[in-house]
């Protein structure tokens, strides 16, 4: 039978009521390692430049350049650390939610019925920490695709199975 009840907009399930779950604490280690490798690359590039370039102006400006880079690295590192606590996710009956970002915070929601495919990827470093990244794709190139990094491998597999079953219509 066809019904067309009016919907009370106030009793719709709200995004505010969702308890978002933080990702694995160990992922912080991966972030730290990645950052330090990145900073090390910058500093070594600077050092190589100092040794190789004999131009006088460059030698004068070197310490300014170096301190600018150091400042950038420190700020970047602090922001990365603070932003870690903002990485949170949740799975609801009908959708997947992922929230991230300190300077620009975003909450992305993908309805399960719109998922095209799911991917679990694990980098070398992530395998050491027994972590995994879950990628969720929707149709179309302009789509907002989710990339939840730093899940426990077993949990990622669990979510993957649950979502795959839902997408394929097996409840």
């Amino acid at each position, binding site marked *: 039978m066809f019904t067309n009840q009016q*919907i009370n*907009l106030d009793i*719709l*399930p*709200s*995004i*505010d009521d969702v308890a978002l779950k933080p990702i694995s604490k160990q992922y912080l280690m991966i972030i730290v390692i990645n950052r330090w490798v990145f900073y090390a690359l910058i500093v070594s590039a600077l050092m190589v430049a100092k040794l190789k370039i004999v131009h006088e102006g460059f030698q004068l400006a070197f310490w300014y350049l170096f301190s600018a880079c150091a400042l950038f690295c420190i700020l970047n590192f602090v922001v990365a650390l603070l932003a870690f606590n903002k990485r949170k996710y949740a799975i609801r009956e*009908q*959708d997947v939610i992922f929230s991230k970002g*300190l*300077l*620009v*915070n*975003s*909450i*992305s*929601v*993908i*309805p*399960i*019925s*719109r998922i095209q495919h799911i991917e679990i990827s694990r980098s070398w470093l992530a395998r050491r920490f027994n972590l995994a990244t879950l990628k969720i794709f*929707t*149709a*179309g*190139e*302009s*789509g*907002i695709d989710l990339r939840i990094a730093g899940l426990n491998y077993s949990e990622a597999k669990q979510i993957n199975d649950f979502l795959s079953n839902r997408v394929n219509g097996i409840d």
Partner: protein
Amino acid sequence: MESIDFSQPARQSSKGILVIFALNTFKFIRRYFVLFLALGLSLSKSESASFLSTTSLILIALGVFVLIFVLAILKYLNFKFHLDNDQFYLSSGIINKDMTIIPKSKIQNIHIKQNFIQQIINVVSLTIETAGDDKAEIEINALSHSVALNLKKQLFISRPISDNGLGDEPVQSALFFKASMKRLLLEGISENHIKSFLIIVSFVFGLYNEFENYLQDLGISDHFQTSVNIETGSILNLLLANVFIVVFAILGSMLFSVINTFISNFNLEVIENDNTIEINKGLFNKLSLILVPVKIQNIIIKTNRLKQYFGLHTLSIKQAMVNKKQQKNFKIVALEKHQVMHLVQKVFTRYADVDSYEKPEFYYIRLLTFRSILVGAFVNVLAFFIFGNYFWLIYIIIIPWIVLFVHFTYKKASYQITDEYLTVNTGFIDRVRNISELKKIQSVQIKQSIFQKRNEIASIHIATASDKVKILCVTDQNAKAILDYLLFKVESQDRD
């Protein structure tokens, strides 16, 4: 129209050899044009190349053409297609054999096109597009017009209908809209000329970069330099020269816009079929596009102040996964307002043109001002390096520009969410209206910067399979309510 049997593997019309040959020759020349030119110029200078007499050059050119021609014949011989009840088969390839199979139900679009050569030898090309790939998947280069129409018809007939024997009934079709010359001319004139100007400028710069060395050799720049030096004699002359350049640029851009509009929209026709819309247009490249309303994701209606005055609206239609070049063709220009509404309602049957829009919060003005000042500051720095101490002169342009930009962009920004449709209005010079269906939304995102958080402002990004729509600067609370509502709409429909 009697239906033709496509069940046996068949080749295209033998005129196809000519079309393939012409296409490949064109591609070959376009790809190596610069190389030829460079080669020719360097050869003409060096003495060592004197063994290359005119006859041997002609022989080489002939050899290349014969090679391309043989390849075209082989390509033609190996290109076969056929059709059964629910799939289209195509085998192609000279050395590597490819077999492409497309289920009829997965076909997104079928285009019939006719380029210049095809017009001369009176054949058309047929392109079949599916949602899967970025580029058109299959192109049959040469079919007679009636065969192409027949094939198109058979590809669009789905099985259940043909089983009931309904497929043979004539399709109701009526010419809905035909753009007159006058309207196309007006459309061209009221186009955004800045765009044309930029295209011309980038083209000229591209050419200049390509041939910089040769131009220098010819001594043109020296010549130019001296002629400028003479003119700098009096300020009046300089001023006149500048005015002349500006007028020339405006006229040139205008002419370019008008010609461009004419060529791509010549003889624009919109034909309404039972459940599809057909677009025919083009002067050199004749295009025929079929739109299936179910597969349409977004509709964008564009107009500006001047165009509104003339009653000109442009309707662009976006489908999932259609490549950028093709996307440009799903565009109907020079429509009246009621015609736009009619087409929109053909696609989105329950769309009602209700005039109650929500405005973004006042914070949007702050955001726009901040952004444009940032751009202004950047231009300022550039100007300082170019004009030196007279850099403040550009404030005469920048400040009014910022004021106008902020004012009009805020004025034109609004949104509307109804039971089934989402409408977002944006634009600075243009007035752009983007309509999408709620049930085709793919994902929703709330974005909030650290400054917006303090003011309890957030933005919403809504993605469909073909486009991303943004509602900028609404209150925190509103953003969450909209998100909840949109998700509810998307997630509840599948249960029906």
